[in-house]
């Protein structure tokens, strides 16, 4: 039977890689926004989105591209940076090494080293997109290697739950960035320019063509938000992530006859009811930001439930020690 500590490490390894991928997507789309935008402070929206403003301005005076991308890609002191996420993923992988495949470990090692080799030049206007692509591909390689090599025992279930949970959370954040950027400028809402920015949101979630297949004519903020929230076939939609999380947790419990997980399942059911019980028009009418915020809090509580029911949370201890002959 899987160690509680290993279950937790698998859960978080998946989350950190997913987080890095989504952050790379966010930065990539942000660059497109910023290039088109008449709004000089648009890089700031990412800081707002991640509640990182106060930490960022401790050391910075201006939220320009160079400073924000440095903060989110290369800054090792920033716990929410891509390099920190991959370092954390690798630390979890180190704890999981007896369980994960050698290929998974090797790829994370090489990926981590490649991130360390990046310099501020790689964040320049000309190169940022390529750097984001490298990060995305590194994360996707991890996901693919995991799919093809990770032994499907209990740890794989925790890994999968972590991935769906983080992805649902990140999609709500990606959607939220729109709100933060455009809400203050009511005049632009619904204009052609606005649609262009929504397009790039879809593209950053690799959803543009999928969306086109579903909504071949109309393109409105409502249908796009609805697609990212409700579509049952789109791999990054909140509904699909919740559904897979729900199914994976059910399977884990029945296959290994585990008693834990009831609270988490109930919470996921509630979130699914909140999401599926409303049309996107209702959600937008009541306030997209408020809805997404409620959702993010709900996902945080699911994490807490899982930690309590499976990881039997205790103070995590680590002691530097070298004991060998």
């Amino acid at each position: 039977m899987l160690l509680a500590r290993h279950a937790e490490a698998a859960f978080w390894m998946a989350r950190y890689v997913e987080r890095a991928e989504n952050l790379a997507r966010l930065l990539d789309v942000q660059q497109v926004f910023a290039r088109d935008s008449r709004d000089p402070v648009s890089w700031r929206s990412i800081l707002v989105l991640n509640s990182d403003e106060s930490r960022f301005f401790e050391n910075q005076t201006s939220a320009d591209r160079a400073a924000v991308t440095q903060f989110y890609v290369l800054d090792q002191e920033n716990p929410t940076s891509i390099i920190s996420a991959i370092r954390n993923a690798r630390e979890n992988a180190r704890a999981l090494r007896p369980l994960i495949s050698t290929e998974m470990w090797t790829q994370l090692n090489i990926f981590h080293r490649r991130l360390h080799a990046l310099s501020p030049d790689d964040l320049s206007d000309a190169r940022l997109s390529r750097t984001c692509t490298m990060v995305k591909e590194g994360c996707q390689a991890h996901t693919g290697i995991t799919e093809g090599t990770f032994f499907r025992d209990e740890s794989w279930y925790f890994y999968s739950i972590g991935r769906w949970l983080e992805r649902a959370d990140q999609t709500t954040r990606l959607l939220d960035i729109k709100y933060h950027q455009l809400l203050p400028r009511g005049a632009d809402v619904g204009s052609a320019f606005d649609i262009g920015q929504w397009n790039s949101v879809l593209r950053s979630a690799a959803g543009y063509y999928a969306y086109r297949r579903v909504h071949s004519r109309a393109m409105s903020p409502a249908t796009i938000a609805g697609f990212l929230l409700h579509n049952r076939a789109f791999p990054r939609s909140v509904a699909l992530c919740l559904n897979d999380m729900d199914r994976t947790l059910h399977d884990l419990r029945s296959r290994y006859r585990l008693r834990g997980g009831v609270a988490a399942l109930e919470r996921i059911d509630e979130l699914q009811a909140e999401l599926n019980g409303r049309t996107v028009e209702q959600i937008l009418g009541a306030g997209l930001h408020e809805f997404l915020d409620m959702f993010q809090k709900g996902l945080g509580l699911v994490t807490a439930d899982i930690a309590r029911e499976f990881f039997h949370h205790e103070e995590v201890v680590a002691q530097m020690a070298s004991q060998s002959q």
Partner: protein
Amino acid sequence: MNASPHRSGLLRDYDSGKFYCELLGSPANPQPVVEIIERQLSTISEEELRNRAAAAENDMFDHGVTFTVYSDKSAIDRVFPFDLIPRVLTANEWNVIEAGIIQRVAALNLFLADIYGPKHVLRDGIIPASLVFGNPNFRREMEGVKVANGVYVAICGTDIVRDQSGRFLVLEDNARTPSGVSYVIENRRMMLRAWPELFEGIPVRSVDNYGAMLRQALAELSPTSAADPHIVLLSPGTYNSAYFEHVFLAREMGVPLVEGRDLTVTDSKVYLRTIAGLRRVDTIYRRIDDDFLDPRVFRKDSILGVPGLMEAYVAGNVQLANAVGTGVADDKAVYAYMPRLIRYYLQQDAILPNVDTHLCAEAEGLAYTLANIENLVVKPVGASGGYGVMIGSRASKAEIEDTRAQIVADPGNFISQPVVGLSVCPTLCTDGIEPRHVDLRPFAITGRQTWVLPGGLTRVALRKNSLVVNSSQGGGSKDTWVLFPEAAE
């Protein structure tokens, strides 16, 4: 001495000087198989060798075959430097080493069972009682505890060196938590990737089944009669420099890798914390020192151990490998008595002799050490990892005087030995292929009987003229080839 004009290729300019060469042996007694290796070595250029060495090092980083050095803010992964030119042991040489180690492990286990039991060896005056009871690694908690099969030392790493005449000598027994075996196996795998053609036509014995043999021995020592006892490997965790090895062995054995916080003791039984609650544990291969095992009995501040573990152990509900308290037997002072202990317990002469050792605790040894300090190696009794070792011939006047003062202040803490002209092996260095000093640590596993992995960790002192092979002191390693007996033998 070993340079000969007919040599070509990589070894063209190689000269082992006055030292015994592990690859070329003695010119008087050439090994046919060694000639094959020499010939195959000569088909590769130094540049090509350097390329392959660089690729191998990269390979190690990619695979995370690293030890990690942690400082305040950063974690630095380092690889244990690896040299591609193998160290070769013929079947005859190996026979001596293997028999010598089996004999030595048997004596160590009999000695431990005796001092934690009837103590005949003390009554018979073979070894001073003060050396046993005064040793910080003697654990009173172990007196009268029944250890399965009498196997205290289930895993032993014996450090062996070779002198200028080619004779093998035991330098040290590592009977607590010896490390390095993962490098033996990884080095071979890397060697097969980096230089597969070098193996052609050479009957090298495999090192691949260490994990299976270890698991079997641990099962043999299990306290339950269960066909499939629950075995775990207890590690100090990811921050330990040997964590890579702990992962490696857990995987090779197919057992869970656990930390102290994953275990809990209830009712004198040990349980594992899983996602489904608690699961009973039968046998623990622990890679945590005695001091840290159980904060209720040993160091109170240990957060690596398991409170109550000793209570479960003494009750016979869990088996530990190695047993608690083995450190008293691999101590540098007790080492000096090993030949006498072998004779006492086994009625045999030691197959592998010790390096001559002078105990400063004894008046004679102290006088000899102080009189000849310039020509001796002085070692503190307690330390490991090559720390605190003073080599008289290399030390400054001030260092010698400092050591002399330390000895006089606390003679019981020091031993001295003559400088052994350690054997050398051709090694890729900045200026070409040069001789570098090596030692050897074979690994022995004991369940119902003792098995020695045919190979071992060959550590190489990469610094010119250095005799210190420890990784913490600039050492690297080599693949160690133990050959099958040749048809002609």
